[in-house]
């Protein structure tokens, strides 16, 4: 049944009239043409579709758009501010922490959520926090390095 769902998307108020059961992933990719959020598995097993809802990582492929109502949704397109890359994005570039790039938006947003909860994670905590995001190209060690270096860069400042 169609319903109107209002939420904040990348700092802008938006609303969409659609079936509230639809996965947020497809609403973002089709209704809003925000294609940085990727489809990888459809069952919350790979993390390619990760977005932030109220600054927490969620798997948008199984997250009903209705649940986003009244909340703040952030996709990879909304992470950099005024053209400046977020320290996580910068660190991924500097560490070459990606190859094909398909898992990258989900990796960065999962790491963002991790650093929100634990601003100075140990290497082991990063591994635990990222373990349910899959990367087939094998950029893992560089991703860990990038997150560590972003955590250092963010130290003392706000996370945005």
């Amino acid at each position, binding site marked *: 049944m169609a319903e109107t769902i209002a939420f904040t998307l990348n700092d802008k108020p938006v609303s969409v009239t659609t079936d509230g059961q639809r996965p947020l992933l497809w609403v973002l990719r089709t209704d809003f043409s925000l294609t940085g959020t990727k489809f*990888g598995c459809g069952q919350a097993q*790979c993390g390619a579709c990760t977005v932030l809802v109220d600054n927490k990582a969620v798997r948008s492929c199984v997250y009903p758009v209705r649940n986003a109502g009244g909340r703040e949704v952030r996709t*990879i397109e909304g992470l950099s501010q005024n053209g400046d890359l977020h320290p996580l994005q910068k660190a991924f570039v500097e560490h070459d922490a*990606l190859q*094909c*790039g398909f898992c990258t938006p989900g990796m960065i947003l999962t790491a963002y959520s991790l650093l929100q909860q634990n601003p100075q994670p140990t290497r082991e905590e990063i591994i*635990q926090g990222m373990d349910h995001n899959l990367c087939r190209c094998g950029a*893992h060690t560089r991703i*860990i390095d990038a997150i560590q270096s972003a955590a250092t860069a963010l130290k003392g400042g706000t996370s945005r």
Partner: protein
Amino acid sequence: MNDNELLNLDFTDIKIDPNLSRRELLKTIGGGIIIFFCVGDSSVLEAQRRGGRGYPDDFNTYLKIGPDGRIACYTGKIEMGQGIITSLGQMLADEVDVSLESVDMVMGDTSVCPWDMGTFGSMSTRFFGPPLRAAGAEARRVLLELAAEQLKVPQDRLVAENGVIYDKEQKDKRVTYGDLAKGKTIARRAKEKPSLKSPSEFKVMNKSFTRRDSAEKVTGKAKYAGDIRLPGMLYAKLLRPPAHGAKLKNVDTAAAEKIEGVTVVHEDDLVAVLHKNPDQAAEALSKVTAEFDPSPLKVDDQTIFDHLLKNAGNSNVGAHGGNLEEGQKQAEIIVEQTYLDGYKAHAAMETHTALAQVEGNKVTVWISTQTPFPAKDQIAKALSFDADNVRVITPFVGGGFGGKSAGQQAIEAAKLSKATGKPVQVCWSREEEFFYDTFRPAAVVKIKSGLTKEGKAVLWDYNVYYAGERGAPQFYDIPHHRTTSVGGGFGGGASPHPFATGAWRAPGNNTNCFARESQIDIMAAKAKMDPIEFRLKNLKDERAIRVLKAAAEKFDWKPAPSPSGRGLGVAVGTDSDTFVAQIAEVQVDKRTGRVQVKRVLCAQDMGLVINPEGATIQVEGCITMGLGYTLTEDIHFKGGMILDRNFDTYELPRFSSLPKIETVLLDLKNEPAHGGGEPAIIIVGAVVANAIHDATGARLLQLPLTPERVRKAITAIA
């Protein structure tokens, strides 16, 4: 493959008038200085010709210097993460004398790029690289010629540097590349063998650069096939059989058709439901009811090996020498083993995707593919369109690994666009991806080998079934040897595989290296020799010896026969003209059979390294992906039904499964550049299996090395 030929291509001028396609090309790409280049008729391109069609003999490489001074490289190669967007750019930038930032890569668009077989086989740097460099050198020569005219200075006084040419005796007499190209359309064909830069002149090559596409990829701006949006486009979901071999008996689409906004297409076996939202198309497809005849296939993942052996056709004898009977006589110790390897999925994070837009008798298709030009021909055939009316555009590809070479999803999208008159996207679900993947083939390797008590290998009788020949010929110094192969790795009409198989990163070589390097390790243990000493004693190939010694030295290897209890394994292999040696350290939980790989050191001889950072990343990726086929990945199936449908049961390597990875690239800048995308994956299975033996004394003969198999092998020797 003779590498020297790469440096001695015959760059003769082919004196023919520009043909129509080139004229059209000039129209499309606009003005500037354009250099056409032909690789020429050289045996180095035989590998590319295996598909039945050679490189065009008119031109196959070209580049353009625009009035803005930017150099555009047009290539049919594609970027799927392997990093040629950076390394090919480096090769060109160095030869033309510009910075890497001044080079634009235009990739995988069949309307502007020269024909290319595809991006696979670690061939981009090896085979496309040399003509690209030559074209760059020719461009530089033309620029110097033009500058001499314009500045009225003899050429030998001119210096080209970073996009500017100046008179070395009067430095303010200068002209930029952009100014030389302005207002001109000059098409040149390379006339003579250009002189390439020598390693001492490199400014961009053999230097580390980070990826050029990462800014787009970390911001979500990078477009993949599924990210292209066209007005009025529809998303299609297709009816699929429950098992390979199951035939559609009847279908009822009435319920789906009643849903608002749904279009149903039913043409022969193609049943598709389309909607402006992909999730709603999927929802509508679930309302379609269908009956299928059961699949006649009976084989499963347990019986597959017997099935393959029973259906084995004639064997091809490959490398051989000496006399096996004589070897048998000389041998004091005989080792006879059978090695097994199951089907593996490519499991790229991006599933097969295509968007097709049919307009009249023309079609444009955006595809996640490693083979844009073959896909173009396939689509033309499927739609009965003239191939000239088919344009394939390849955006960024989200991982390939050999799996994105069949064009099924593009044909589906093209047919549906033709049927509906609208742009149609087909993006496979993960379940479809596992179902239609062209798996790495299940395979059996039987080896009988012999050695003397002093540890000299004298007999090698190697028989591979269905992995393919790549990596099968051994490179040890064994006087009496023979290698035979049954069935290619790529399936085909008479294939006994129950479903499609195909190229999987270094096709065949992973299975062949697992068998060969395990067998060599067993022989070393029988001779009570250290596995590196045993290999060195039985190697004559200088590159294999050099790379193995480099690995041992960097690892600080202390010799000891296996099992030493340390959990250290060794393996060496060759692929794409590159040699690799690895040493791994593992920890085995003897109670559970769980293996944790702690450290992998990889030494790699890949000749000239264009981008050391990029090459290192490829090694890391190979080792990581290799740990998947080594420890967890295996396709489970029953009859034609694929039981692994997502990542819950098909387990990819994760952050927590990774070892410390160290890469040692041999510094060989005076040698030709060899392949880099695949070699380091080939020996991961062997090096881990050998390390498990060293830790426990248990020998694993089947991939993957699951906890259950490890536990069983340990129990068997207790």
